[in-house]
């Protein structure tokens, strides 16, 4: 509908007549819509836009020998803003101008932000298609591909496997440790827990390359003496653990206290409360926390840059020999100025991107619900369970007191 109030306040003379009646009648109980457009506002927008574009074209083509697409866009946008303000001010007051101008600026910020971010992704995928269109890209390794070979030889299967192995090991450490620590922070508490929370919060500030440097100096130089998958996993773990702890901590904190209290009131122990109430309630949140941490861990290049080593061959043994992962493989490919290598780099980046998107979509599907909120399937399952319980309890109702007494 319309921005009725502002119209009424600022320019009573030009307020749309139909709405005035409807609004004052009080009969129309519909909520006032503050987020829409009137036809007039639309006209202002479109008109100013067209005029801005025309003015910019005139300036660029005839008046000033300006050139360049970016320059044109900037000039056109400034002209649009100026004309838009002018158009609004023709029949509205200062407040109205400010309001509409601010909305235009917000939208501009949004358009730029989403435009650029989507462009970053689309650009990567578009340039990766060249390599991705060769099916061998997904199943072969770079072992048999020399620097002169075309795109129909070689692939990144080894990097995909490397990424999966490394992230699996990291998750094997991170999930139990991270969630248990988060449970400790929330359910046990105390001074030591506060200390743990402070330390783990502090570690979220650890730059990922420093995590890599730590593993390089402590583990590679000190223990394993070679770059390997396990070293990369450890670096990812050091980077991911604080993130997972922090987000799990937040999720657990969101579990309503009355659920816990109800559980305690029923006489269950702390352990049972955590296992049967707290964790199931925050399940989707925890899964989301872990998956988002995973996405972060998979995508980060700098820890593996220092620790995993570079290999062109499939290596499934994380304890021996270099094991490359997707982000590092991207980095390794695009160092080369050769078009085929760059195409492979973009292809690998696309694979990485799709992996992260997949993880994110999974996180969205599983998470995104408040604690205790059930999906339709879960809800029907819960109803069925309650019904069964009811039947069971009903069937046992008579003998029970007898046994107890």
């Amino acid at each position, binding site marked *: 509908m319309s921005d009725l109030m502002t119209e009424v306040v600022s320019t009573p003379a030009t307020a749309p007549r139909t709405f005035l009646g409807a609004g004052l009648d009080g009969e129309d109980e519909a909520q006032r819509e503050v987020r829409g457009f009137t036809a007039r506002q639309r006209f202002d927008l479109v008109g100013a836009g067209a005029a801005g574009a025309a003015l910019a074209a005139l300036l660029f083509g005839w008046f000033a020998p300006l050139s360049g697409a*970016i320059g044109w866009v900037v000039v056109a946008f400034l002209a649009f803003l100026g004309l838009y303000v002018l158009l609004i001010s023709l029949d509205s007051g200062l407040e109205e101008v400010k309001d509409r101008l601010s909305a235009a600026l917000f939208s501009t910020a949004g358009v730029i932000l989403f435009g650029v971010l989507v462009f970053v992704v689309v650009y990567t995928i578009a340039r990766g298609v060249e390599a991705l269109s060769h099916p061998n890209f997904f199943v072969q390794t770079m072992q048999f591909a020399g620097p002169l070979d075309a795109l129909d030889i070689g692939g990144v299967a080894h990097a995909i496997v490397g990424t999966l192995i490394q992230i699996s090991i990291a998750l094997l450490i991170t999930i139990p440790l991270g969630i248990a620590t988060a449970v400790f922070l929330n359910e046990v508490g105390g001074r030591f827990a506060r200390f743990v929370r402070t330390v783990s919060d502090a570690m979220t500030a650890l730059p990922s390359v420093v995590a890599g440097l730590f593993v390089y100096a402590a583990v590679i130089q000190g223990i394993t003496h070679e770059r390997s998958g396990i070293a990369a996993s450890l670096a990812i773990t050091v980077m991911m653990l604080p993130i997972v702890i922090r987000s799990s901590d937040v999720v657990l904190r969101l579990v309503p206290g009355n659920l816990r209290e109800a559980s305690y009131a029923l006489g269950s122990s702390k352990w049972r409360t955590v296992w*049967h109430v707290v964790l199931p309630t925050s399940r989707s949140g925890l*899964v989301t926390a872990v998956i988002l941490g995973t996405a972060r861990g998979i995508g980060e290049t700098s820890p593996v840059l220092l620790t995993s080593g570079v290999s*062109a*061959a*499939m290596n*499934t043994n994380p304890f021996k020999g270099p094991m490359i992962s997707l982000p590092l493989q991207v980095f390794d490919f695009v160092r080369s100025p050769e078009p085929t290598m760059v195409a492979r780099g973009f292809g690998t980046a696309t694979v990485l991107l799709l992996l992260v998107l997949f993880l994110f979509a999974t996180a969205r599907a599983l998470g995104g619900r408040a604690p205790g909120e059930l999906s339709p399937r879960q809800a029907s399952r819960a109803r069925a369970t309650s019904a069964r319980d009811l039947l069971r309890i009903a069937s046992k109702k008579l003998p029970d007191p007898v046994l107890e007494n």
Partner: protein
Amino acid sequence: MPRRLARPLVAALVLSGLLPIAFSTAPAHADTYFPITGSGSTWSQNALDQWRSNVAKNYGMTVNYNGIGSTSGRTDFIAGTVDFAISEIPFQAKPQDGSAPEHPTTGFAYLPIVAGGTSFMYNLKIGGIRVTNLRLSGDTITKIFTGAITNWNDAAIQADNPALAMPNKPITPVIRSDGSGTSAQFTLWMATQYPKLWKTGMTSQFPSFGESKAQKGSDGVAGYVSQDYGEGAITYVEYSYAKKAGFPVAKVLNAAGYYVEPTAYSVAVAMMQAKINDDSSSSAYLTQILDGVYNATDKRAYPLSSYSYMIVPTEVTSKGIFNTNKGKTLGAFLRYVLCTGQQQADTLGYSPLPMNLVEAGSDQIKRIPGAGNAGIDFASCKNPTFKAGDSPSKNQLAVIAPYPADCDKKGTSQCTTGTAGAANQTTPVTGSGTGGTANTKTNTGTKTTTGGSSNTGTTGGSVSQPTYDENGNVIAGSTTDGTTSGSGTTYGAAVSKPFTLPDQTTASTQWLLVAAALLLVAVVVAPPLLSQRLRRSGGADVSR
């Protein structure tokens, strides 16, 4: 309930754990060879990557190689985190550049793997046409990489290129940001040949200066030069990178007075003059002494030729990851590299090793634990530099190496044929001998002064990319036609045309244009605004 919590996580773990197993059956080759891992030089990485894939295909060997720079490779070898390292220079026990001395604690041996030329890849256009036949003398190169020469139209560069009208364009020297053997070879050459110009001595860390741009790895510098914005840039990099990137390299003046391209032939000819440390008891056994190469008097020799070394372990220690199983792979790999592998050196942009070094390398292989006592069978060795029964000091490539054309001789004229990756692009110049040396010199003088007075503005090269001119008419009238046409009058033509409009006039016209634009805006906006104002005041009167 809790099991439901665990299920997706467990599923994810199992899935990611199963995938590798499914994939791991793919390469079924690896029968008896243990994988080996090395790191180091990017100078010879192109050759190594090719060999790596060849031995994977043919013998099922897994050779991992990480091109992270020679210095990192040597550091890794000392730390024992790799089985072998590749470097252009030996361990630096007393480094000249103040870096940390390198003292490997385990036994090691140097083993030459391939020869090549450190070339000067550049990206230069004159009047929108790519130059592919640039020639540079040693001291010009040194001056460029010390910041003494900063513009392509410098008299020294012009003197090297009599047939090109060098544009007024700043030079962007691209250097290596990491510790690199290429930097070391290049600085060693400068320190030996031009000690007055280059005072730093041999260094792996090229010091940044003036307008220099630092990039990591041979890939990085070559990649920068080959970009559009790399126009005007020049870098030092192995010949193969220029070949791969499709860019030309500068022909470098040798001691015989010819400008030579670092082809496999010219490197092989030059390397005939290398002295090799043949004291097999020394730890620097087989390392190269290149003074003879720098001053080789053969017309065909490329002065910046050198070998790249593999550093191999000669003992198994508990400190590192090397063991005799890996020694077996390493030995087999090296036997391949020294013979069959050398066949591809030329195609890739390197030069194959001569027989004497293959012989010595064969002895070094025997020192690797686990590699076995079998050296190289010279009868079946497919190295293109020798035939069975040749004398070790002979190099077949040097025998058949072509002599440079007359137009490559210093002073008179300039060949039009392209180099390296741009070999099939000729640069349209006809600066034939009619101009003569005297003419060249006088013209050069005139041109330099003109260039100096014509300010530092946008240059002719920008013509090809008008999109760069946001600011309006910086470029508007300045179409510098740098391409030369007439013979002998080449310079005159280039000089007579102004290179660019001076910036000052540009600024004032810009303000005029701004005024014009404002006027346009006023014309568009003022009438409706005024009429509105008038109507409103009129309307107000009516309502009162």
